[in-house]
């Protein structure tokens, strides 16, 4: 693909550039462009403190987008992200109310709650063959209902535990925020799973053509279900980190992560139809989205303008390289 589009120029370029996906290159080029524009606006855009801070903010989106990418690679989508995030955060905070044991299990408990949503999604998509867009919207509504019932009657424990705060804001290695380390670890695990395990190859296979994958002896339904469970778990983990960052859980905290997580994956060159895409692209997409958000907020753009620019940028970039092939 890249050989044909880049033509003769590609021949003179180093091998790693020739092999790279044009979408990933575009995304990285846009990051550089954004940083350049930002530095024209203010010198501090290129300072290490600012960049590190951006990376830290990006890592929450990065964790969530990792799960989203796995699902999108299958050719499905997970729209239950908002309340999976909120549920993870709220359940982890809630567990902390039950003594020292509760504090100890808070983080796993939050993640497991998110995974449960994911498992329901997975059963619906893989075994009942309900379109993923529909079943995940429905589980999102159910999760929202559960959380409203849970918070409504009384004022629940909503402050994050020390461990959650440490994961989100601490520094295990001086100079590198823990959140970034966590994202790096999850990202490395994801790259390993996608490129070095049979599960990862099965994910790409199913994304290309599930029927063929099934006929090659892959238990496609199990793979799809695991992918959704992982996505739910990672969304909830993102929520746990966010709760640690803000030091409390809130009901609508996940709303701001649905569109960005899809956008990050798709802008990173992963095909929304599934079967094609690299994790490096998702990393680029996450950083790109975070930088865009940051620059818009530094320029004191109101929420309305941010939403508009956001939507336009996503459509524009998709029109650049996310188009489906002409059908004839």
């Amino acid at each position, binding site marked *: 693909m890249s050989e044909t589009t880049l033509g003769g120029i590609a021949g003179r370029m180093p091998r790693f550039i020739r092999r790279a996906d044009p979408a990933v290159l575009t995304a990285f080029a846009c990051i550089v462009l954004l940083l350049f524009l930002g530095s024209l606006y203010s010198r501090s855009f290129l300072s290490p403190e600012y960049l590190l801070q951006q990376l830290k903010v990006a890592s929450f989106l990065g964790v969530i987008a990792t799960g989203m990418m796995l699902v999108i690679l299958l050719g499905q*989508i997970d729209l239950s992200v908002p309340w999976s995030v909120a549920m993870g955060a709220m359940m982890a905070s809630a567990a902390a109310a039950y003594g020292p044991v509760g504090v100890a299990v808070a983080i796993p408990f939050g993640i497991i709650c998110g995974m449960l949503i994911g498992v329901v999604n997975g059963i*619906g998509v893989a075994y*009942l*063959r*309900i*379109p993923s*867009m*529909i*079943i995940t*919207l*429905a*589980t*999102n*509504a*159910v*999760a*929202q*209902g*559960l959380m*409203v*019932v849970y918070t*409504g*009657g009384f004022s629940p424990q909503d402050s994050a535990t020390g461990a959650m705060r440490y994961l989100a804001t601490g520094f295990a290695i001086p100079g590198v925020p823990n959140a970034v380390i966590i994202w790096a670890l999850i990202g490395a695990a994801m790259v390993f799973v996608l490129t070095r395990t049979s599960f990862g190859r099965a994910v790409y296979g199913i994304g290309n053509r*599930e*029927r063929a994958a*099934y*006929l090659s002896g892959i238990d*496609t339904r199990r793979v799809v279900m695991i992918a959704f469970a992982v996505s739910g778990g990672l969304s909830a983990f993102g929520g746990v980190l966010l709760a640690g960052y803000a030091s409390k859980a809130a009901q*609508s905290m996940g*709303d701001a992560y*649905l*569109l960005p997580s*899809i*956008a990050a994956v*798709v802008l990173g060159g992963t095909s*929304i*139809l599934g079967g094609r895409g690299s994790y490096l692209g998702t990393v680029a997409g996450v950083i790109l989205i975070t930088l865009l958000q940051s620059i818009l907020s530094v320029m004191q753009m*109101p*929420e*309305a*303008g*941010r*939403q*508009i*620019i*956001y*939507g*336009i940028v*996503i*459509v524009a970039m*998709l*029109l650049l390289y*996310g*188009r*489906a*092939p*002409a*059908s*004839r």
Partner: protein
Amino acid sequence: MKDWRYWLAEQRGTLLALGIFIVMFVIYTSNHPAGFTANVVQTAANKGVLLAFVAMAQTLVVITAGIDLSVGMIFTLTNCLASWLVIGTGIETAFGVLAVLGTGLLCGAINGAIVIYGRLQPIVATIATGAVYFGIALLLRPFPGGSVNEDLADALTGRLFGVVPASLVVLLAVVLFVWVPFSRSVLGRAAYAAGSSETAAYMSGVPIRRGKFAAYALAGLLAAVGGLFLTFFTYTGEAAYASGNAYTLFSIAAVVLGGVSLFGGKGSAIGAIFGALAFRTIGDLLFVFDFDPLWQPLFQGVILLIAVSLGAFALFRVRNRLEWFL
């Protein structure tokens, strides 16, 4: 087979939705403290038509095997716009109504252009355009407020001859003047054909692009009618993110309840209307049975989950394992 059997098979989804709605509505009114009175019907109709318009909009797009996740945001945007424009003298109000409807049509046309001519996936494209529409709504109404021509609002949300809810009459008019002509036109047939099998439709020389584009554009128009009605009920405009999203979500539920296939090519907007009315009535059942309102979101979510799982019954018709992976 006789003709009526074909008709029955074709209308099965719609009739099922009608049946569910009638059962739910009978349970609702028989348990309502006021009983089956014109007032109860009027209130139920006014709440129901909002979702019915949005569900009709969603149907048009779903028939082409697409989905419009921005439909709730067009609804919100037109609500905010109407709270500025639909006011003043008769002519000003009429102009305002036309401008609001035109905006809806434009939003739908933009969606259609991006999806069809830009060749993007409807899910991502409409999520992104939905963000843009919501942003514009927020620009128009950073805080809830505004007003509307109250004479017109009261006339359209009141009762005709003291009995028939006017909103139902408008709904019927929209069905007669938008849905019926569209579904019987070449473009409407093309939208169905494109949803059923795009390749086969193309090979048969059906104008699929124009058909799909018309479906998306009309969806925007119908969502705008819904937004206009929301303004008539509330007298204000509000850029509420949660409410816009909820309408998108409920419209999908209503479409599924109304027997419209999410894979495209099957179903009708009339089914979706009954689906919407049934969905609203189910939500209202909680109130007549004196449940804690806190449980309403959960209850609606579970209904939604069950409604969409109903679509999975097709699973039992699968004869060959490979049919799982269509």
